[in-house]
């Protein structure tokens, strides 16, 4: 695996029981870049995302065939601990899901359980600043995180994710539950975060994919239809299906 890859999948098949959701997915994720996964509902893009930090392990009766490489190791090797993978490959979910605890604790908890020994107050502050949330919440760090607005909660979830210093951040439609202004803030944030982290984002919003991502992969029915640089893919799709999808003919 080349050193400029954050992650890589090779011939990845995924099954929910008897239903196959992914077929031979081979995909490279560039380091410190944003990769967008697009496609209609049920095409397997979220499933792939959840394969990348073994979140699918939590769903009973699922099966993975193939490889997901992270730092030259197949994360599905039996000796790999999924807990370790999930710390290094963080995840932001569709619906903001902060812990029902204080804002401070939301950031501090993940760091604490992962053995953080430094200055916790400083970590909370930098994490919140990186997510452009510090100014809004600095006076009420002890308040419950659920008292924040949806957009603030989602930025808090991103701050929580970066507080444990992952290498990769997975985002599963992070703005689909948010209003346009909050969405714009998150998109801005994604562009800043890619300086430090590799980001893989699933989105239904093609404009969003075009705005924030460097590469895009288009999925259909569990297969990759087309992968390429985002500009190229949106300007000159090679496949007819891609063209049809990005021009809004289905999906």
């Amino acid at each position, binding site marked *: 695996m080349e050193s400029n890859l954050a992650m890589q999948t090779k011939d990845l098949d995924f099954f929910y029981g008897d239903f196959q959701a992914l077929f031979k997915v081979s995909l490279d994720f560039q380091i410190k870049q944003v990769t967008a996964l697009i496609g209609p509902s049920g095409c397997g893009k979220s499933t792939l995302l959840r394969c990348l*930090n073994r*979140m699918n392990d*939590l769903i*009973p*009766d699922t099966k993975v065939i193939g490889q997901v490489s992270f730092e030259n190791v197949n994360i599905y090797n039996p000796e790999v601990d999924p*807990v*370790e993978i*999930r*710390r*290094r490959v*963080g*995840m*932001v*979910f569709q*619906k903001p*899901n*902060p*812990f*029902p*605890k*204080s804002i401070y604790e939301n950031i501090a*908890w*993940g760091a604490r*359980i*992962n053995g953080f020994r430094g200055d916790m107050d400083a970590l909370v502050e930098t994490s919140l600043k990186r997510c452009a949330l510090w100014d809004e919440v600095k006076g009420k760090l*002890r*308040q*419950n995180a659920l008292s924040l607005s949806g957009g603030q909660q989602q930025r808090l*979830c991103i701050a*929580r*994710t970066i*507080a*444990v210093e992952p290498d990769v951040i997975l985002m599963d439609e992070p703005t689909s539950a948010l209003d346009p202004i909050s969405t714009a803030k998150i998109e801005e944030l994604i562009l800043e975060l890619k300086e430090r982290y590799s980001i893989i984002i699933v989105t239904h919003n093609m404009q969003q994919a075009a705005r924030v991502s460097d590469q895009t992969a288009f999925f259909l029915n569990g297969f990759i239809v087309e992968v390429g640089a985002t500009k190229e893919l949106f300007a000159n799709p090679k496949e007819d299906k891609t063209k049809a999808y990005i021009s809004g003919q289905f999906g």
Partner: protein
Amino acid sequence: MSKTKTHPMARTHEELAALIHRRRQTGKVWQLAFYGATGIAILSLIVLLLNIFNGAFGFVLIQNEVEPADLVASGNLADLDQAGLIAIIEEYQSAGLVRRFNAEKPLANRSERELIDLVEERVVKPVIIQAWSLQDSIFRQNEIRAVAADSDLTTLTFRSWVSWEFVVSPQNPSPQFAGVRTALLGSLWMILIVMVVAFPMGVAAAIYLEEYATKKTWYNRLIEVNIYNLAGIPSIIYGLLGLALFVRGMAPFTSGAMFDPTVDETTNGRTIISAGLTLALLILPLIIINSREALKAIPKSLRESSYAVGATKWQTVWHHVLPASFERVLTGTILAISRAVGETAPLVVVGASTFVTFDPASLFAKFTTMPIQIYQWSARPQSQFRNIAAGAIIVLLILMLSMNAFAIIMRNRIAKERRV
């Protein structure tokens, strides 16, 4: 297609109005049924409470063997000092009895209160000749007063069968001196054992079944089906189980002989600990089921957010799932324990004593509990026992209500602290 064919949804204004009216009528009929059901429930509760209060208060006709006025000029025993009271006891009681009293506790060492009680019980010897219900006391007062006036040497007083005296007095063969102290202590001990045993075990089992057990393995399915069935088993069966397992099988432990060989062997393991363990078993399935429902109600997103920052399963359960479900777990436990407090049948089988006059000294003491005491009193032929049974029911109700209130306040306080 013919032009006369109308759209299937087409209705004239009148048709639509009639249709809506019919739908509203149906709704009203159901609404009435719901009101009716609630009304019947409230009515039966009121009848139940009235029935209890009817027995717990009312006029009593008391005849004293010796009038207090004959003992002290004012007619009030409290006006006498210790020496005066001892003098009365020695005057009215045989020398043998006085020796026995002294052997129990020297009279000179007894407090004035204790002496007054002794004089009341042994010398004055009030006998309740007749007791009336609250209903009669209110509506047939004239008749009652007439009866009282007819009989000599009697006093008519309005008596509340439930009083502080009633709560702190031990069991006694005569109803006007009997109290629920021993039964109340027995019940409190039992609640303590049930809580200590059933709560942690039930929550732990629920966590295993909900968070760790894979639903596919046959033994987990078997456990699950069995727990649901166990919750429906009649409580007397648990009594039989407790009798075989705790009273007989573990007699050396439950009789306390294991720890203290000099212990009273006659208890045979029919002790508070046996009863507590039996009731703990009885409510274990309830706690497990309630706690599982509570854990199940925690959304997947909370677990995922915890895993996503690199938490282990145990950290996820301990830091997020349990705290978030704690209120519901506690509510389920309160309900289960309330059920244990009211259980009678299994305790009869396990061997609750019906007549205990001394406080339970340890977990390995003979015991009785409030429901047993009520059951036993209400089965007595003398009508006055029904009055004290009604009094005991009120005490039991107050006990349960205050327990539940305490638990709810605690729960709300925990919830509030967590939300900050």
